[in-house]
């Protein structure tokens, strides 16, 4: 056995991220690690790569015990990691990015020519073509990933950890990558793939280990299992279709017409002539591999980004080119995709975080109505079961799930006709997820129009009345809740044709 991790436990304070995890890897094997967000996949791999120290447990390579106190130790032992967010230097050349850390030298000088030749030889050996002299910033994402893999191989890695390797790739690039992984594994390189895309995992790996809540719920051979079994191991329960009241959609609330957002010079548009409506009393889900225009769409329909072409109307009011403030005035509430970047101010109190975006209803003549505010906040804390020390606790001290509940409470409280819910349950526990889903469905019953953007297909399928699939900035297809299946959406997400 090339690698064995035994009884790995990792605690952060009261939180246990990994609990008694066993994991093994053979030479030339592709072993996938799957699980939902927050299941502990990344923590386990950070431990293997020396970025975190386990609270308990041991790591063996070829039978000898290892201890990695830093990534350098792991690299020296032949473990390489391709992070989800690439660790590249955009203004450096491809060759520079690959050889960094073990640069060819002539005296003290960095022999860039030798580096380029070395990279060329490496890329030929492993059949991964790159241009050594190109600037990384100018390489497409697929090539950037290739650079990352070559860098790891150049470090002498025998084990390559890849964190969500296909998240930002186009279908062609995904196909290429999976083939490359196969080829490399035949050359003796072992892979650990962290993923939550079951189909890819089933296609490309030999064994699959499933994590849930920090524990291993099963290690299975890919050829002996299927997506259904894996997903039940992942979520620990059968997927139930939520009872949704039948609603007849009313007036269009959000009307997006031919919206285009241009990319950088020479690049493809980020959003390409996107048109759709969200009507009162319906939830429209937007699915897609992340990076296919979801963020741009969210920013375009909230006023956070100027659109180059097209029109956006909210509650019958043309809000094209208006500021976020005017969008909110026209009746927008917005659960943002990144709760810390956009959705909160960590250093400020729970109360202050609860006011944002709705100052008008909390103030009179420019003065904040403190007692009314405290009353309302206390109500939210109660009804959404937000665990907080007090209303004056810094928002940064709340757990992710409680922070998210606070944001949802804030955005649902004002009964706006239109709600954007972007990744509303990312990284929250099941309980919080149910609370949030109930809140969204309740708003739907109150004739609210909801645009749901999520990378969790199960969530989209569970809540949406209609589903739009974004692919490369375009709407690749539209499905009704009745006809949509996970498979069909996946095909559209990958740029395939609607059947």
């Amino acid at each position, binding site marked *: 056995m090339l690698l064995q991790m035994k009884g790995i436990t990792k605690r952060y304070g009261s939180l246990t991220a990994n609990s008694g995890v066993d994991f093994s890897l053979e030479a030339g094997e592709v072993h996938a690690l799957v699980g939902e967000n927050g299941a502990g996949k990344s923590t386990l791999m950070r431990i293997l790569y020396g970025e975190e120290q386990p609270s308990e447990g041991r790591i063996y390579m070829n039978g000898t015990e290892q201890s990695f106190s830093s990534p350098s130790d792991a690299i020296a032992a032949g473990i390489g990691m391709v992070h*989800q*967010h*690439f*660790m*590249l*230097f*955009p203004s450096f050349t491809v060759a520079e990015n690959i050889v960094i850390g073990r640069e060819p030298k002539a005296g003290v000088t960095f022999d860039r020519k030798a580096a380029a030749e070395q990279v060329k030889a490496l890329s030929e050996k492993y059949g991964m073509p790159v241009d050594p002299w190109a600037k*990384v*910033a100018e*390489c*497409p*994402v697929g090539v*950037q990933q290739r650079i990352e893999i070559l860098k790891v191989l150049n470090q002498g890695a025998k084990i390559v950890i890849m964190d969500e390797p296909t998240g*930002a790739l186009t279908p062609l690039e995904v196909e290429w990558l999976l083939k490359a992984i196969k080829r490399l594994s035949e050359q003796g390189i072992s892979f650990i793939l962290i993923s939550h895309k079951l189909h890819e995992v089933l296609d490309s790996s030999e064994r699959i280990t499933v994590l849930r809540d920090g524990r291993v719920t099963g290690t299975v051979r890919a050829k002996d299992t299927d997506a259904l079994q894996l997903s039940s191991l992942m979520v620990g329960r059968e997927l139930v279709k939520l009872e949704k009241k039948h609603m007849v959609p009313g007036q269009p609330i959000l009307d997006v017409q031919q919206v285009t957002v241009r990319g950088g010079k020479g690049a493809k548009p980020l959003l390409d002539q996107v048109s759709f409506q969200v009507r009162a009393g319906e939830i429209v889900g937007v699915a897609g591999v992340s*990076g296919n225009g979801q963020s741009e769409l969210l920013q375009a329909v*909230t*006023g*956070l980004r100027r659109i180059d072409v097209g029109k956006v109307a909210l509650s019958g009011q043309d809000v094209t080119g208006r*500021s*976020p*403030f*005017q*969008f*909110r*005035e026209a009746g927008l509430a*917005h659960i*943002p995709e990144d709760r810390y*970047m*956009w*959705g*909160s*101010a*960590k*250093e*400020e109190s729970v109360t*202050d975080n609860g*006011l*944002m*975006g709705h*100052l008008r209803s909390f*103030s009179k003549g*420019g*003065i*904040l109505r*403190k007692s009314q505010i405290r009353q309302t906040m206390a109500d939210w804390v109660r009804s959404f079961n937000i665990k907080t*020390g*007090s*209303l*004056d606790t810094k928002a940064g001290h709340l757990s992710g799930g409680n922070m998210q509940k606070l944001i949802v409470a804030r955005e649902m409280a004002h009964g706006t006709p239109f709600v954007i819910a972007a990744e509303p349950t990312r990284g929250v526990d099941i309980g919080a997820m149910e609370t949030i889903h109930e809140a969204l469905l309740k708003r739907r019953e109150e004739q609210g129009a909801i645009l749901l953007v999520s990378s969790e297909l199960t969530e989209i399928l569970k809540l949406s009345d209609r589903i739009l699939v974004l692919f490369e900035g375009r709407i690749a297809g539209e499905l009704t809740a009745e006809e949509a299946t996970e498979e069909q959406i996946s095909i559209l997400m990958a740029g395939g044709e609607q059947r």
Partner: protein
Amino acid sequence: MRRLNWSTYAQALLMPLAAILLGLLVGAIAIWTVGGSVLTTYQEMWKGAFGSFYFTTSTLTRAVPIIFAALGVSLAFRAGFFNLGAEGQMIFGALAAALAALYVPGPGVVKMLAAIVAGMLAGGLWSTLAGWLDTKFRMNLLITTLLLNYIASLFAGYLVAFPLKEKGGSGGAQTAMLDKSVWMPKLFDGMTLHAGFIVAIVIAVLLALFLRYTTKGYEIRMLGSNPLFAAYGGVNRGRLMLMSMMMSGALAGLAGTFEVLGTQYRYIDNMLSTPGYAWSGIMATLLAGSNPIGSVAAAILLAALQTGGMGVERNTEVPLEISSVIQSSLILFVSARITFSFIKRKKARAADGHSA
């Protein structure tokens, strides 16, 4: 829930107190190295600052411009803008106030009000210029405010050395003396403390209330805490930046105004740069973590160290610069612990390689 507040207040107080102790410790070492008696020196320092009613009021007089500058800087810091231009804003405020008091016709009260308005406007506009350069051309505010200080100081210096120079005066670069009717009333007979001190305290309280209880104050705090969150919530960064820079500069302008109306009764070249009021104001702000009421306390503390230093120099062998050593080590200790929320915002850059 109320009780929890007290412990946070206590914690907020603990850090400055520890810093003060450490500052005094460093000061003690400095005194010891020059062969002075630490105890005597600190006694003299206390006497120089608060030893008598006269010294106490002098300390408070010195604190007035520092308080105003600190309040201005606090406001900008709260909004997330590193306004280091208090000196220039103060200088133009002082000059404009002097000119208004000299040349606006009418009774003393009218002149006085005109001077105050002119001082606020001049400081505010000079500060807004830096804000405008930032919003319009994305020019680094920290650098522009610094550069504008030099420009303001030299320009004001030119004006009082040539076109506006006192006719037939002693020859120094200064404007004519203001009419007695526009002098700020003194609070106590024979003491230097003037009504500007009351105004400073009132404004500090108003500013604290403004930040805490108004929607604009709320927006300013959120903008400083997380600008993306503010943008998401519909806060207009450009407009709010100009507004907070205007207010910040106007407060610095008031520092200059009250120095002219309450202490010097004219604009004299370098009257504000030499005592370093603006930098003391910035120090006070850092010391108080941009809290307006705390800034008042910190400003008085710094003023006390400065007047105390003069006392030390009068009565011991230790030079008055001992107070700048204490002040700067104090601020260094505080800054080591300061983790304004804006420090760790480089996450976005790490993801650069990811999204092409």
